[in-house]
């Protein structure tokens, strides 16, 4: 407190510094301290009476005989917090846990297989679009070799519809397959459009 802030009292005299300070001081008692004081005191007196009849126990005292290794207390909070952080679920840990349980493993593999199929499917669709422009040229080659398109469909395990037509030899099929292997066109698309 600044002494210049002290105001004169009713009699016009300037009060002393102490007059301005609360006599209770800055000391606070814990919550419920006074409310429980009597019962706490009574318990202590009762315990003292019991200990009066236990001179050997009193003689032994209350000294703590349990020691800690040096630096144990200082390092303990870090140890606990590291353990807590390690126990938090992370992506890596979740994956590791997946491998530890057969049912979860099957589930994970199913998901992985579905993802692979999806990627392959997208790749095939993309390839199909890419090759549509050149498909008609290959169809014309097939027509020139006088091959039944629906037999080719059977060879490639596509929807097999048999039309009567000229049969082709293994050699012809082989040549055709070589021809197709070197290309990226979609045979199924070509056959459907061609028919």
């Amino acid at each position: 407190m600044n002494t210049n802030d002290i105001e004169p009292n009713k009699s016009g005299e300037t009060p002393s510094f102490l007059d301005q300070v609360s006599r209770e001081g800055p000391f606070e008692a814990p919550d419920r301290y006074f409310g429980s004081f009597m019962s706490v005191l009574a318990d202590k007196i009762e315990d003292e009476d019991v200990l009066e009849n236990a001179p050997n126990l009193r003689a032994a005292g209350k000294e703590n005989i349990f020691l800690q290794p040096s630096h144990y207390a200082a390092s303990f909070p870090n140890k606990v917090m590291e353990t807590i952080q390690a126990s938090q679920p992370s992506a890596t840990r979740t994956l590791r846990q997946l491998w530890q349980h057969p049912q979860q493993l099957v589930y994970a593999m199913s998901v992985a297989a579905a993802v692979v199929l999806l990627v392959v499917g997208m790749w095939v669709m993309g390839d199909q679009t890419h090759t549509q422009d050149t498909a008609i040229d290959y169809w014309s080659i097939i027509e020139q070799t006088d091959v039944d398109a629906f037999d080719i469909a059977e060879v490639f395990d596509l929807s097999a519809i048999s039309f009567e037509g000229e049969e082709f030899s293994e050699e012809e099929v082989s040549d055709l397959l070589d021809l197709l292997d070197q290309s990226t066109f979609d045979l199924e698309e070509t056959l459907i459009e061609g028919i």
Partner: protein
Amino acid sequence: MPVALKEQTLLDQLKNPVTRAYAFEQVVRDHQEMLYYHIRRMVIDHGDTDDVLQNTFLKAWRYLDRFRGDAAIKTWLYRIATNEALTFLNQKKKHMHQPVEDLEADLRHSLTQGKYIGGDEIQQKLQLAILTLPDRQRLVFNMRYFNELKYDEMADMLEVTVGALKASYHHAVKKIEKYLTES
């Protein structure tokens, strides 16, 4: 900062996910020593105490959301530590297929031969006398005699009536005095 205000600030920080870890570390620092000795007096060996103390704080962290602040943090932690210590002793009895006498012998061995034990002969004898008490009575005696906790605090921590605690403590004092007189 007044104790009540500090406790409330800590509680607020524990509820906030951003400050939770920081506040919890503070809780560990504030209570680790008190809980260490509470557990150590029950399980005797330092290594076992370390395990139980870590489990105590891990459980406290895991169940932090369930702590509503009705009791003081200290009371809540004492409760967890007590349960962990008693569970540890029961598991030791079960897993090692030890009868009660063998567990007492095991604890006595830790007390007389183990590391990190100090004190003079009479203080060690007092600890041996305490080991002859049943686990719960040992707990009550240690909390009242060494930790000097109030009965109503202990009643909250152990969920037992004050009357039962007093009877248990007074009975323990008599048994210990008898042991010390006879040995």
